[in-house]
């Protein structure tokens, strides 16, 4: 499970060693965490 760019939807591999994170493809700084494939159960209240 990774992160994808909010602008170009490119799946970004994050290098935790380097300072700051950004899209490797377009340089956009907003990344969105991918939704896990497991079923999510939520109480309706």
């Amino acid at each position, binding site marked *: 499970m990774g992160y994808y760019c909010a602008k170009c939807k490119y799946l970004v591999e994050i290098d935790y060693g380097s300072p700051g994170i950004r899209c490797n493809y377009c340089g956009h700084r907003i990344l969105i965490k991918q939704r896990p494939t497991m079923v*999510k159960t939520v*109480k*309706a*209240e």
Partner: protein
Amino acid sequence: MAIEINVIELTERYAKFIISGLTPASANALRRCMINEVPRMAIDEVNFYENTSVLFDEQLALRLGLIPLRADPGLYVLEDECTCEDGCSLCQSTASISAEGPIKIYSSDLVMGDENISVADDNILIVDLKDGQKLLLNAIIKLGTGEMHAKWQNAVVCGYKNIPHVSITDCNDCGRCVDVCPRDVFKCVDGRVMIGDDINCSCCNLCVEACELDGIVIEEDPEAFLFKLETDGGMTASALIVYAVRMLRDKAVRLKSVLERFSH
């Protein structure tokens, strides 16, 4: 004193009736029973398989939970009272949504797993899916009561007041009471002040203060109550009243048997 019921207005979702010969405690017990204790079905848990809509899973789950469902509560049992361990057809049912945008998903798009359950209103908008957005979920419907959560509350409006009696003992037909009364209890006919429908009186006493002669008397009947009741369509108003009275009766019978056991 015998209990008398006089129905003033009765539609599928609304009831207005006068019940007399009750103590205030009994009237309040009936009100609380209609609000809190008559069970109904509502969505309690939602399993999300996919949700790329603009709403978070939690927001969607709350919206789904508040959709009024129409079902006979006698067909199901409460989860705590069921003998099963992880859900059976007696204590729960399912509903599902599978859609891909662009589409607006309404309450009528819920696919019920049980033919005895249906939505009370078809036109409640759940979410608006834009192009490419997907929603795939499975909801679990359970029986519950209003004291657990408001989504299981049958009576959305339920209140009562004592029946007011307005009388005029002295009058000079000045018409001030007609002007100040917000409920139009008084009316002026040919220059004479008369009492119209005093059941609408809210006992605000504005007319009593306005009258220079102190000629207006407002009294409340302590044993007669005007009930107003409104449901959200999960159950008809008349069925709700009957169900609540039956529950009260069963409770009284249980209390009596317990007290008898103690007295021996």
